[in-house]
């Protein structure tokens, strides 16, 4: 059954890929025609994609779609969100139910190569980390020798954990839980000395579930790479390029200091890099098949990457995530916007 299912799915994807290659730019044309972007997001992950009390979507991944809508259609509201569970997300993209998948999804070789998808760039660098109670006075994961470590079963985190300890010739005692609820309850009731999962989740758990967030520290070691970013279907290179360059332009806008607040005054800037993004120098938007105002609309309506980050997951929010790896390359991070020129 499973085999049959995957063969059928593969065949369907292959057919679709062929069809879409024949009509290059079809996705953009369809989007312009229907006048909205259909964007796949998480069903509910705080900071990345979740409806607020009024039912409005918020989050880093959600705002990427808004930026895309502002750049492509000139209005950040022209986006419809499809909440997707983890197993649903790739089918939804393959079948054309959504135009872009922006759902804290790790870009991997397998997903690019065998699922018929394209990762358009990295929107958030995540990675597996450790959290320990402050009172244990642990400063590094290397000090966790023989520790009991809470971990969720059936996830890649379990594998990464044992790989890390084996690589460092240390032993540990895994305490395995099936669900997030059991997992976090166990840690906060001191069933184990450390917990491990993605660093962003650790920060969220500390902020929202700890009785006193100050009592817990997240160790500096990141033991796996989880580059999360938007994905599109293979076979429409024009659309892929648009998604890719919207992402990079949001990064570049931060680098050059273009913000929602100053974008109007920056329009007069003599810096050619700035002018290419917001003042239609060298007609960057037109080359992508977009309007000359694409960069301006995007930054005016949604903001640059730094603003989007701060608004959704930054230190002023409940999640209190540091920029860390996601800081600009010029500020000690690895966020490096490929130049729009």
């Amino acid at each position, binding site marked *: 059954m499973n085999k049959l299912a995957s063969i059928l799915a593969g065949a369907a994807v292959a057919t679709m890929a062929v069809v879409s290659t024949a009509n290059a730019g079809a996705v953009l044309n369809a989007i312009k025609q229907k006048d909205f972007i259909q964007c796949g997001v998480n069903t509910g992950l705080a900071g990345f994609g979740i409806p607020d*009390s009024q039912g409005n979507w918020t989050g880093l991944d959600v705002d990427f779609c808004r930026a895309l809508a502002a750049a492509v259609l000139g209005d950040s509201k022209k986006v419809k969100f499809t909440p997707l569970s983890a197993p649903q997300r790739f089918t939804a993209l393959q079948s054309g139910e959504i135009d872009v998948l922006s759902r804290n999804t790790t870009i991997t070789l397998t997903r690019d190569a065998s699922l018929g998808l394209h990762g358009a760039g990295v929107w958030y660098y995540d990675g597996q980390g450790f959290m320990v109670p402050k009172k244990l006075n642990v400063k590094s994961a290397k000090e966790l020798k023989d520790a009991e470590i809470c971990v969720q079963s059936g996830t890649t985190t379990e594998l990464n954990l044992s790989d890390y300890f084996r690589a460092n010739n240390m032993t540990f005692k895994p305490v395995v839980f099936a669900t997030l609820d059991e997992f976090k309850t166990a840690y906060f009731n001191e069933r184990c000395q450390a917990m491990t999962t993605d660093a962003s989740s650790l920060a969220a758990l500390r902020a929202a579930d700890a009785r006193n967030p100050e009592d817990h520290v997240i160790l500096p070691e990141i033991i796996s790479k989880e580059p999360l970013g938007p994905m599109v279907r293979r076979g429409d290179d024009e659309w892929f390029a648009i998604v890719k360059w919207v992402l990079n332009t949001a990064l570049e806008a931060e680098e050059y200091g273009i913000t929602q607040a100053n974008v109007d005054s920056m329009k007069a800037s003599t810096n050619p890099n700035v002018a290419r993004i917001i003042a239609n120098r060298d007609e960057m938007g037109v080359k992508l098949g977009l309007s000359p105002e694409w960069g301006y609309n995007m930054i005016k309506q949604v903001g640059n990457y730094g603003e989007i980050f701060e608004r959704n997951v930054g230190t002023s929010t409940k999640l209190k995530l540091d920029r860390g790896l996601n800081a600009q390359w010029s500020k000690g991070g690895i966020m490096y916007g490929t130049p729009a020129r």
Partner: protein
Amino acid sequence: MTTLVDPSAPTAAPRDNIGVVEWLRTRLFSSPGNTILTLATLVLLWFVLPPMANWFVLDAVWWAAPPEVCRAAEGACWAMIHEKHRLIIFGRYPYAEHWRPFVAMLVLIGLIGGSTNRRFWRRELAVAWAAGMVVMGVLMWGGVFGLTFVETALWGGLPLTLILTTVGIVVAFPLGIILALGRQSQMPIIRTLSVVYIELIRGVPLVSLLFMASFMFPLFMPSGVQISSLLRAQVAIILFAGAYLAEVVRGGLQAVPRGQVEAARSLGLGYWPTMWKIVLPQAIRMVIPGIVNSFISTFKDTSLVAIVSLTDLMLAARQAVGDPAWRAYGLEGYVFIGLIYLIFCYLMSRYSQRLEVQLYTGRQRL
């Protein structure tokens, strides 16, 4: 002078055999074993009830308050429900338009409530349902009379749960009857088809049907053709509930004595009149508890659509408790929707009991 006791004079019953004492003695302390059980239960309640009362009521935060107030309180944080109730009940339906699903829900509940009363079982009821469905459709979708259009992808919460359940039951019930009749049919093709259908659907969990409907089905469709995920899930629920109802109804069909059919035949009635007027009324009346049982599980099964990302009551509650500011109070959110499910299921089961009493009157006198 000695007073004679008149043996025929009425005397008061012994104190032990009346009132509270009698009730306690016979119900709670009738034997050493029962006495131990009673005492053990009392001790258990003593340990369980006060903390529960404290958590639910006494130490709870009842009013609207920021999460910090809840953090300081020991008990439940009902402020979380105050903050999130509209998201939980209406999902992602546009906030300003929440009155529309609210009114639609009232119409639906009113129709269901009216239909439970046997006095209203007339032709007009069908007209009322048709009118009600139109009103609900207009309210939910909009797009006419100045109402903004709201696509089904945005429907959510309790209205979605009720719609999935009602449409599921209303369509699955006739489907179930037809399948049950098909399974008993003399015609081999119809019988085989019915058996295969019922066994296939009953042989897989609803979750896998929903997965098929939402993951596999879109891949088979030519690109560009989209069927809303709500409709796909609704069809899966109908197919599933239909197969189970078919088996319940078959139980009733088998309990109707053969003589009934033979008598109908000898009076010259054809197949459909026999079934419609003689067999089914008796069969269905016998399996009301089973049917209502199916209805209740269909109602609760709709919560599975959360895994195919339809924002029903369950997923809306999950989204509400996903907010980091309120995440520590997830339990309150689940208690809230638990109560909603409980109320609806309880009403359904009460109604089935009432209906049984009403329809079984003839039988009970026997």
